[in-house]
């Protein structure tokens, strides 16, 4: 799955060099021979590590930082191997253009799939270790002693035999001129001093004073501002606009038709300030050809999804045993239909990008989860060779998967074409961000299970009907028409190695998981947690229903199918124990467990439902076994935040359509959790060692189902569709 997501994030153009580069050259941060940077001399020990004469260590991080803390975690891993003083560590983003010129020395820039750390830890640790070896070698050469007699600690190099020592800053320049080692040995986790510690983030201070510059804050000399309105109906087109009606409004510099190769079609107003541009855009008379989806609405969507629930044709994602036989011999059949709607990412910083386009150069500043796909977009949109394009990443004001798509980069370049040489910042309004997201895919599921006379689950059929992300974003990645990602967290373990990060948590004797693909005219996207979110709801809520039908305890019922998944069972037992599962204390609890993005996670929610149907989520206990915990306090932060994201979706969020147009235009109709609704989250970080699992997404999967099951415990009512909204009100 990682490979799949990687594969589709990289691109529309084939500039990306082959995987062969990801060998030793990549891992050791070597500048390929004959490929020196423009000025001939590189002020670095290697690609990952730059050390200034005052010992300041700059760690280069190619992955994007959007709040998930990857930047700090990766710096910790490099610092650990480098043996430098953590107090002297800072960071910088290399640019995708520099990386391309150096044969992708920094590897993938793609930041998604909870992969930022686990996908780059190996080569970045090796980069840090190689830099340490080169620094030691440089010192040893100066002293005329064997490097083997020297060691580094806290940014100081010592010679064992004599009392000589020197600082990193003094030998960094010489070290950078040495040949990199051909082999490096990484420290065992048991010797970690910096990695594994709950250190503070490197990027906090500037976030507290307003000094940090996000994409929306870019200011360039002579810059003009643009606000855009794309056709409100997907697949529609701009027909015309009446520029004369607004051209005399204050600050207005022009109106630009913006059509991109992604199929977007709209119009932007350019002005001296964004407020002026947006005011004028609101007044601009526009005619649209709304296209074939102008009648699309929620009824059409529901009919489409329901048509797949019993359809004969479906892609099989996981099958074993004899489901028909099991159902035929059932003592009791249990059946339920679930639904999860489209949801928008709605990061706090609405989409934006800034570009300067001349006849031979295209520079873009933007918050992106994938610098390389933004660079490819810049090249394609500008028509310039990729070597004449560059992307400068900023820290993102939230991403959640939305900023892996470069649509706003294509758009800003179309606007910039009308103003050659003038910096243009395109800032979307919140309304534009709501209308033109790449939404969480919408699906329904028909769940059927058979129980025998002893209340044992003998067969389970999960029929998913609905949208495929790959069909919408990159149909070339479909496998004979099937979207394997649809089965995330329901895969059979061991079938495809690159999907084992999302294998099913349970062992069932007779199982069928299949997907009737039904794609509505809605742009799907990777939304924090991706297909784990709805699949965990379907599986975990239905397991609760089965346990109830069988008259068994939901914890015991789950564990009965987890003998082959001891790590999954361990996180489930951990939350049950901490939360007081089974205690007769009047509290209403619900459980959920899943395995996604390489981590084992479970949650126990504790809720109170008032007589009026108001739900209060009192407490969440959440456990994560991510194998290796590089920064435990940041993992806790991710877990805390994942519940806000997952529970906002459960409680309030859905994107619906009327006449082809998104109905939820801003936060007043697309609410997000506020502090009053925030439950107390107790995160249990329990790394069992030996692997690296993701942490940004996994616990989102258990957020909604744990609460839904707790609501059942409190009320006896099953919530089977999101959002909850007024469902429990009389």
């Amino acid at each position, binding site marked *: 799955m990682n490979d799949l997501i990687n594969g589709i994030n990289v691109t529309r153009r084939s500039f990306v060099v082959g995987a062969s580069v990801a060998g030793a050259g990549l891992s050791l941060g070597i500048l390929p021979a004959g490929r020196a940077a423009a000025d001939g001399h590189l002020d670095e020990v290697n690609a990952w590590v730059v050390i200034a004469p005052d010992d300041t260590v700059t760690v280069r991080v190619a992955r994007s930082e959007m709040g998930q803390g990857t930047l700090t975690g990766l710096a910790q891993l490099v610092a650990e191997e480098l043996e430098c003083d953590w107090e002297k560590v800072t960071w910088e983003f290399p640019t995708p253009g520099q990386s391309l010129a150096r044969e992708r020395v920094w590897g993938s820039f793609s930041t998604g799939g909870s992969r930022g750390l686990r996908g780059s830890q190996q080569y970045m640790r090796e980069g840090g270790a190689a830099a340490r070896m080169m620094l030691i070698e440089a010192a040893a050469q100066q002293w005329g002693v064997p490097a083997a007699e020297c060691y580094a600690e806290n940014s100081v190099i010592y010679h064992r035999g004599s009392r000589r020592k020197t600082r990193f800053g003094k030998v960094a320049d010489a070290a950078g001129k040495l040949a990199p080692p051909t082999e490096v040995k990484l420290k065992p986790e048991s010797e970690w001093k910096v990695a594994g510690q709950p250190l503070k983030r490197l990027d*906090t201070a500037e976030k507290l004073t307003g000094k*940090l510059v996000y994409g929306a804050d870019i200011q360039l000399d002579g810059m003009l501002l643009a606000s855009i309105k794309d056709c409100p109906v997907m697949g529609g087109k701009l027909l015309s606009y009446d520029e004369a009606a607004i051209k005399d409004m204050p600050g207005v510099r022009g109106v630009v038709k913006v059509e991109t190769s992604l199929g977007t079609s709209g119009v932007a107003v350019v002005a001296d300030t964004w407020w002026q541009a947006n005011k004028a855009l609101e007044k601009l008379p526009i005619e649209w050809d709304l296209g074939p989806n102008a009648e699309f609405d929620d009824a059409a969507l529901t009919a489409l999804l329901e048509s797949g629930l019993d359809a004969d044709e479906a892609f099989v994602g996981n099958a074993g045993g004899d489901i028909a036989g099991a159902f035929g011999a059932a003592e009791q059949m249990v059946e339920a239909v679930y639904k999860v709607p489209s949801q928008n990412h709605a990061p*706090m910083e609405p989409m934006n990008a800034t570009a300067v386009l001349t006849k031979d150069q295209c520079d873009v500043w933007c918050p992106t989860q994938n610098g390389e796909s933004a660079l490819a977009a810049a090249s394609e949109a500008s028509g310039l060779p990729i070597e004449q394009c560059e992307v400068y990443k900023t820290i993102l*004001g939230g991403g959640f998967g939305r900023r892996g798509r470069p649509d706003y980069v294509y758009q800003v370049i179309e606007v910039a074409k009308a103003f050659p040489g003038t910096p243009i910042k395109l800032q979307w309004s919140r309304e534009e961000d709501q209308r033109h997201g790449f939404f969480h895919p919408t699906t329904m599921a028909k769940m059927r299970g058979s129980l025998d006379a002893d209340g044992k689950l003998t067969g389970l059929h999960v029929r998913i009907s609905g949208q495929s992300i790959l069909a919408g974003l990159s149909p070339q990645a479909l496998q004979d028409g099937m979207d394997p990602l649809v089965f995330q967290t329901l895969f059979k373990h061991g079938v495809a190695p690159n999907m084992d990060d999302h294998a099913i948590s349970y062992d069932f004797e007779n199982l069928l998981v299949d997907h009737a693909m039904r794609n509505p005219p809605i742009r799907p996207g990777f939304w924090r947690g991706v297909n784990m979110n709805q699949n965990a709801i379907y599986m975990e809520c239905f397991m609760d229903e089965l346990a109830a039908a069988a008259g068994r305890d939901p914890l015991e019922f789950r564990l009965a199918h987890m003998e082959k998944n001891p790590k999954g069972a361990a996180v489930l037992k951990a939350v049950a124990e901490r939360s007081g599962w089974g205690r007769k204390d009047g509290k209403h609890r619900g459980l959920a467990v899943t395995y996604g993005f390489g981590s084992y996670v479970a949650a126990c929610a504790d809720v109170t439902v008032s007589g009026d149907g108001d739900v209060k989520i009192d407490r969440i206990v959440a456990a994560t076994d991510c194998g290796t915990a590089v920064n435990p306090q*940041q993992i806790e*932060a991710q877990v805390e*935040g994942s519940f806000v994201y997952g529970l906002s979706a459960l409680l309030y969020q859905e994107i619906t359509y009327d006449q082809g147009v998104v109905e939820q235009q801003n936060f007043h109709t697309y609410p997000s959790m506020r502090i009053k609704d925030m439950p107390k989250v107790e995160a249990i970080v329990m790394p069992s060692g030996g692997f690296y699992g993701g942490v940004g997404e996994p616990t989102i999967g258990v957020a909604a189902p744990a609460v839904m099951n707790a609501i059942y415990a409190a009320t006896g009512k099953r919530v089977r569709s999101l959002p909850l909204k007024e469902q429990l009100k009389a």
Partner: protein
Amino acid sequence: MKSLKVNGKRIEVDADEGTPLLWVIREQLGMTGTKFGCGIAQCGACTIHIDGRAVRSCVYPLSAVSDSNEITTIEGLSRDGEHPVQQAWAELDTPQCGYCQPGMIMAVAGMLNDTPNPSDEQIDAQITNICRCGTFQRVREGIHLAAKKS
């Protein structure tokens, strides 16, 4: 031209009277710590202080401000992050993406001006800013910590 007092400094601005303070601050004054999030006073990313009271600047027109009002933005809350709320946030490593935090910090600092030691119920009622990363647990803890530091 209109005369404003921003972060203790007298500043002349040339903008339409209907322009929200958010955009005057960001585009005329070039101070980008105050963020645009929604434009309809829902999310609070644009929170500033007028005479010590938290307001959402995205719907607060220039015309509503007089030259005697003291406007404070995140850049003027303290010299270099010394305000108790900023200190508490640093101690708890509260921000994730951080985009909402200038507004969150201004909202909290504004609340503490009137309610120096807020209860959880008062926090629930008064702090209504949106944070999509979900930092609320540390925000709440940070408010109590800042109250102790003040």
